[in-house]
């Protein structure tokens, strides 16, 4: 299998790698943690929809509407298969951010006697690793309902401290919302004990899979979680589409979030009844082209094989961690070993602010992200203003890592540190 995985060949599927960067350099794209690049297959799928089948789905009695509906519902099936779910459990949103907000608002909208209703004394559990998208919606839900927000801390290596799990996930806990992989440190969170404990106290587990679903195989049944969210744009897909998955049983019991057309069973001037999921959660004309583009993206990934993707990234991360270990004045933040960690490497440099690091790297065509990475509480916990983050994906190879390491050297020269 391994020899099939040739990033140089994969790069040819991605038009952006023809781009000439500052200083006449080639693009060394190490910012897939923020958003991934898009292969022709995805761009062509979107375009084919617009050029040959564009119509509002579930409406209209004409051929285009039929074809659009089949393509859109077909995309749902592809996504369901990708995470081993039933297709009526898969909801297209605009982003992971919307997916997580949808769960939080849906819970907030539920009637007092519902299992999803929160009240003072109830608890929501998150962790210090969370991206703002999996933190602020829960802060707000806690504020609206009077529930208490509690979190797992991290240790010096950026691993979750689960030693106190029984107290953190107390008997009063209703929701545990946790990231699968830290977008800053690469830490992969051990889910089994969290899921077990959450279910033991009757809480649901919401998984932020933004940094995992694009990078390794996800099976919602094996994970045992209750809800999952990820963004299409980080998984080779178009912007403007995300996935919300929830157990059918819960989706059926939940109140909708956005209301409007196509999500109803019946409507009068004063009352509306809801259609069954997934429609209940997809008000309005959906992001059809984007859903179809995302389906093309996960087909592309599936053809590569998610296990091959994961293995490739693991090997590349090992290679990079070795190179980093040999650098002077550069510190990797987060797990330094290559166990239970993804292909994200955050680092700081003595005497150079991350923003300046990023700027020098850009001069060499190396695209990284700098700052707090929308995980400000984590930065504060680590005592940092920010980090520089390199994140790898299917199109990266050792030459990209070498370019990164070389440009780090240039930054040190430039800033004379």
């Amino acid at each position, binding site marked *: 299998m391994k020899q099939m995985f040739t990033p140089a060949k994969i790069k040819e599927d991605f038009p952006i790698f023809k781009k000439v960067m500052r200083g006449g350099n080639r693009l060394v794209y190490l910012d897939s943690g923020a958003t991934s690049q898009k292969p022709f297959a995805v761009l062509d799928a979107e375009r084919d929809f617009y050029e040959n089948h564009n119509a509002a789905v*579930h*409406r*209209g*009695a004409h051929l285009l*509407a*039929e074809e659009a*509906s089949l393509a859109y519902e077909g995309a749902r099936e592809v996504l369901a298969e990708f995470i081993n779910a039933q297709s009526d459990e898969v909801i297209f949103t605009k982003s992971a951010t919307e997916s997580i907000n949808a769960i939080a608002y849906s819970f907030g909208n539920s009637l007092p006697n519902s299992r999803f209703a929160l009240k003072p004394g109830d608890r929501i559990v998150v962790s210090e690793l969370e991206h703002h998208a999996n933190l602020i919606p829960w802060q707000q839900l806690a504020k609206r309902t009077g529930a208490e927000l509690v979190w797992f801390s991290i240790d010096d290596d950026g691993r979750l401290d689960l030693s106190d799990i029984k107290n953190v996930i107390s008997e009063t806990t209703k929701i545990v919302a946790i990231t699968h992989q830290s977008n800053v440190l690469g830490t992969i969170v051990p889910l089994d004990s969290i899921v077990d404990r959450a279910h033991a106290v009757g809480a649901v587990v919401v998984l932020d899979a933004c940094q995992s679903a694009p990078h390794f195989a996800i099976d919602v049944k094996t994970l045992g979680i209750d809800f999952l969210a990820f963004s299409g744009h980080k998984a080779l897909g178009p912007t403007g589409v995300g996935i919300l998955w929830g157990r059918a049983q819960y989706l059926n019991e939940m109140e909708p979030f956005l209301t409007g057309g196509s999500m109803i*069973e*019946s409507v009068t001037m004063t009352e509306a009844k809801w*259609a069954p999921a997934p429609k209940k959660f997809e008000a309005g004309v959906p992001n059809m082209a984007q859903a179809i583009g995302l389906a093309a993206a996960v087909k592309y990934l599936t053809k590569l094989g998610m296990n091959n993707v994961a293995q490739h990234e693991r090997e590349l991360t090992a290679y990079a961690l070795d190179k980093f270990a040999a650098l002077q004045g550069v510190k990797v933040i987060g797990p330094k070993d290559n166990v239970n960690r993804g292909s994200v490497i955050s680092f700081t440099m003595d005497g150079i602010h991350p923003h300046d690091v990023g700027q020098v790297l850009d001069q060499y065509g190396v695209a990284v992200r700098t700052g707090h990475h929308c995980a400000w509480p984590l930065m504060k916990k680590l005592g940092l203003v920010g980090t520089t983050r390199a994140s790898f994906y299917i199109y990266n190879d050792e030459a990209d890592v070498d370019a990164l390491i070389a440009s780090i050297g240039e930054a040190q020269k430039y800033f004379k540190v």
Partner: protein
Amino acid sequence: MELDSLYQEVILDHYKNPLRKKLEPNYSAQVHHVNPSCGDEITLNVDVVEGKVKSVSWEGVGCSISQASTSIVSDLMIGKSVDDALSTVDAFSKLMSSKGTEAGDENILEDGVALAGVSKFPARIKCALLGWMAFKDATLQSLNK
């Protein structure tokens, strides 16, 4: 013309002269089903007596497909055992999801096979199923009483 595979003569006949379209006062269950995407609605009464479908009757508005289909299912089911009736519904559902690859068993579905062509028009499958799903729902409700 593709249309002709959808609108068989039998269907247009049922549409113009629907059977059992008048609610019977005796029933073991009454259901109201809606097709939210087009607004079609039917009310359907089923009377199950000693494990047998004694009567089916209905009222409602809808397109030719949904009206004809409801007419067909209502007439077809009378006299059947509940088991037989439910498996007939399953056979029809299967036909509807066949994407035009099946013709349907006339021994089981009788006039229902005229709806086989609907399976090639995904937007109309719900129309054809409306009456059948209402019948199934009402029959199951009768059993639970």
